Structure formats: C-alpha cells, structure tokens
C-alpha cells in the first residue's frame, strides 16, 4: 500500500468519495419525526387496603366460583412465568447462535487471509534469497 501508484489511486478515491449533501429538508423532516417532549404527569397515589375475596363478596359471587377464578388466575400466572422462562431460554440460545455465526465468519475470513498469503507468496516472482517449494 506504500507504492506510489496505489497512493495516487487512494488520493483519487478520497477526492471522489467526499460526502454528498443530504436531501433538501432532511433536518426539518427529522425534527418533525422526533417524539414530542412531554412533561412528566404526576398522579397522586392513594394506597388502598387490600381485602381478600372482597370482590367476590361485593358482587355476591359464590366462594367456590371465586376460588376457581383465583386458581385460574394463579395457573395463568404460572403459564405466563413458564412462557417467560421459555422465551428467556430461546433468547439466550439466539444470542449464542448469533455469536457462533459471527465467530464462524471471522474464522473463514482468517482462513481466507492465510490462503491468500500463500497465494501471493506462490505467485510473486521469487526475490533473491527466497525459497519456494510446492509439495
């Protein structure tokens, strides 16, 4: 890369690849798309005293039905927890897979670089004092 012809070419590249202007009105459109600034809304907090099964008593619901509803809710919560766990496992697996794919591409690039090194050495005219042998 230190050869003069390459340096000239690099200078040409720099000259011809200067950034171009963004489309007219780009900034205005972007600013219009920004989320509006909002002041935080303060909601007064009124603590409530929790009374078990109060809803059931209030609406005249039989205790057994209320209990069934409670079980259903708890089961739903458990299913939701299991789903969350499965999603977490899937997310971890996905991360592992993405990391592995990046490593794979990196490995193939290193492999190609070294094969290229061999190629260049084999195909360059031998300098004085060089040995070259191909099995």
């Amino acid at each position, binding site marked *: 890369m230190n050869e003069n*012809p390459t340096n000239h*070419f690099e200078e040409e590249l*720099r000259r011809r*690849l*200067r*950034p171009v202007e*963004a*489309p007219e009105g780009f900034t205005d459109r*972007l600013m219009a*798309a920004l989320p509006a600034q909002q002041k935080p809304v303060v909601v007064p907090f009124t603590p409530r005293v929790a009374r078990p099964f109060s809803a059931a008593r209030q609406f005249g619901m039989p205790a057994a039905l209320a209990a069934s509803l409670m079980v259903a809710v708890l089961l739903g919560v458990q299913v939701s927890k299991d789903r969350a766990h499965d999603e977490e496992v899937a997310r971890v697996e996905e991360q592992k897979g993405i990391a592995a794919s990046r490593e794979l591409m990196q490995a193939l690039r290193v492999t190609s670089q070294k094969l290229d090194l061999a190629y260049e050495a084999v195909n360059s005219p031998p300098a004085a004092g060089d040995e070259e042998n191909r099995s």
Partner: protein
Amino acid sequence: MNLSTAQPMPDSLLAQARAGDRNAFATLVRAHQGSVFSIGLRMLSRRDAAEDLAQDVFLQLYRKLDSIESLEHLGFWLRRVAANLAIDWLRRLPYSATRPLDEGAEVAAQETEQDPLMSRELVRLLGELPPHPRAVMLLRYQEDRDVAEIAAMLDMPVNTVKSHIKRSLTALRGQMIGAKLVVEDSP
C-alpha cells in the same frame, strides 16, 4: 454542508442537546447529515433507502444522547451506527433490491468534478463490493478514519480491516485500469 470547511462546534452544543434544546440537536444533525446520508447512499445504492437509514440513525441518536461523551465520540458513534445498520439492511434485502445508482443521482458536495464518468464508475464498482469491505472502504476514504477506528466501529480485527483495504484497492484499481479510466503507472 461541507464538513471540511465547517466551523468547529462548541462543546456546549452537546450538553444543550442533552438538556432538550432542539435547536442544538438540529445543529448537530446538520453537521453530520452529509456523512451519514453518504454512508447510507453508497452502501445501499438508493437515495430513498439512504434517507430512511439516516433518519433511523439520528432518531437513535436522539434517544441515546445521554451516552454520547463528546463531539468526537458523536462522530465515531454516528459512523459506527450508520455503517453497521447499512450492513444489516444489506443482509436483509435481496441483492436485486439494491440497484446501482442512477446517473446523476449523486450530487457532489463540492463542484470539482472534472471526470464525472470516472466518479460514477468508481461508485458503481464500490457498490459491487460485499458489505463489509464496502463499509471499510467508505469509512477509510469517504470518512478518512484510521484502521484502528474502523476496526472498532465494525467490530473486526485490525488485520481484517487492512486486508479488506488492500484487496479492495487492488480490485478497484484493476477494474478502473481495465476500463481505461485510470492509467497504469509504470513501476
């Protein structure tokens, strides 16, 4: 806006933008929009996609202003996000969706074009490079970043960056010589 002739921005501009000053943020955008848009344009070869990409990048910046440490970091961050986002988009788009630039689609920041044919051909050939070498070449020759910075931006080893540059230069120069747009210098 030509970055090379732009007035240096005061450091306080970043703090003002972080504090919610929209004018300050707009100034930061205007200072970098050319570079970000150009990375998108030369990576994706489409003006509409490049503008979408640039919008995405700056919207991300707006959300993450608190993590930007300095104006220098801002420049690094924008180019890193733009290049990596473009690479991701290229992976998702079928190759047919990224067509070569229309003639005259690029407007040079400075009117110094003595050979527009060469520029168009160069950009076209650049657009034929695979995503990673293309991004490396743009960060090197459009954005004038050094090898270590490019390696950090694209999360690749320094030697890989050097290899991309070397091979891409050889290929581009060879193609330009073949098309008789560059004279082959005698050694």
